[in-house]
């Protein structure tokens, strides 16, 4: 069913998107010098598809406090009954067919 539940998290950072939907097959997470966000170090999260070249990338650079707030929001969303059920089902399917 539709959950219609959105947790809004106040953030400080920068993001860089792509004009069309792209397939993402990997997330690269590092805490390092950002390219744009106004911090010495930032949580750098790149959603990428390496097979499609370096430009297939949605980039987010967050302050460390913003990253922690995002993690809390993700964990809260993952605690919803629908997410718990789907994670259980997907984990079970992966155990049967790792591909």
């Amino acid at each position, binding site marked *: 069913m539709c959950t219609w539940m959105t947790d809004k998290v106040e953030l400080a950072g920068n993001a860089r998107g792509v004009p069309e939907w792209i397939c993402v097959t990997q997330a690269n997470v590092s805490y390092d010098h950002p390219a744009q966000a*106004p911090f010495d170090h930032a949580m750098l999260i790149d959603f990428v598809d390496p097979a499609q070249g*370096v430009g297939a990338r949605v980039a987010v650079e967050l302050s460390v406090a913003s990253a922690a707030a995002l993690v809390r929001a993700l964990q809260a969303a993952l605690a919803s009954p629908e997410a718990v059920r789907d994670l259980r089902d997907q984990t079970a399917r992966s155990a049967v067919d790792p591909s």
Partner: protein
Amino acid sequence: MKEGMLAEMAGFPGHLGDVIEGYHARPVTTGPTPGVVVLHHAPGLDPWSKEVVRNFAYAGFAAVAPHLYHRRGPGDWADVAAAARADGLAKAMPGDQVSGDVAGAAAYLKQQPGSNGKVGVIGFCSGGRQAFLAACDVPTLDAAVDCWGGTILPRMSEPSAWHPPAQGVIHRAVDMSMPLLGIFGNDDSNPNPAEVDEIERVLTDLGKSFEFVRYDGAGHGFFCHDKPNYRQAQAIDGWSKVFAFFRTHLQEGGSGVHLDD
């Protein structure tokens, strides 16, 4: 100062003859011109790094910044840098590859019309570490400047760390063959003041020619005026030290004669 300059992306042979790209700027002058290889910081060959290249041209040097992540491209500099970061330092920029690219950039500068045959290297952040390494590995250079290069000493991982220990380059210092200028901020954590002390001790024990300048009230990357760590007073003084050092070691006739005289 040289108001006129030419700036462009150029290609030249780097490590193992791979043709890599670099950002090249040179003053419009008929006089003998020293060269500087600029090694960009970890975020990549970004607009600030290109501005540094143009600033050297403005001061009378021909300069080129090899794109050290070139092999991970093609693409926008930020995307290429992100891909290199995901690969990890050891794969993205192995030391022998960087030294080969620096040697190629130095050769490219020396081949340009008007070169006086002398080339220095300057690097920032991870590029500072590479400038330190180049001072040991690339004898065709004449002088090197390390700006807050991290992980010159090996760094042990904390028990909870999610990355492996980083290998340093201090063991290569025995082969350092040119004068070195180091610029550091005392609020930096990599290298921190104790690590700068240790680098200083090793170079002193080896009898190397070097000068370290350390600034209070500055941390990592304090020359970068597009970043929050920029510290104007320390950066102005630091740049003056860099230009004086290169004028001393790269200009025929040595110190006291300014390129713009």
